[in-house]
């Protein structure tokens, strides 16, 4: 089990993974402060 969340940071990479792994994307717009 992962101990920290591993986020993608590029949309094109996330889309490619989503297609390859047949999963939806959770897109989180956050305030880095």
């Amino acid at each position, binding site marked *: 089990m992962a101990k920290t969340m*591993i986020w993608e940071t*590029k949309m094109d990479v996330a889309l490619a993974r989503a297609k390859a792994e047949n*999963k939806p994307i959770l897109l989180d717009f*956050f305030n880095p402060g």
Partner: protein
Amino acid sequence: MDAVTYPDERVMEFIQKNMIPLRVAFDAQPLSTDFNIKWTPTLITLDSNGKEHHRTVGFLPPEELIPSLLLGIAKSHYNGERFNEALSVLDKIIVEYPKSDSAPEAVYLRGVCKYKSTHKPQPLKEAYEQLQANYSSSEWTKRAYPYRLL
């Protein structure tokens, strides 16, 4: 979200297993404009073509985030007319997270999915009856109110 929800092991496991997590700053262009971002956190469920299916704005605790993400996954199936897949996810929300804020919408959408897959109105009436019995003050009970007459 970083202090409470994302470090939760149930949340982390759910997201890593079921979704591709993508995080960008609220002002990152062109995504901020493309998705009309006005506040944070804004969480959006996208399909593998980048099409939006579900959105929430504001903090969600772990016990609300997981059913909310499940609702987004269910809507992605529903919008793609994969009703059996949508029903499977909606049932999971209703059974495993019945007290969550996502549950009433899941009951409503389950009725709609069943109607669309069978073309019979009875599931819509059953959805209203379940909403009235379990979530009488929910906006989704109000939205289902006409179905009592079916």
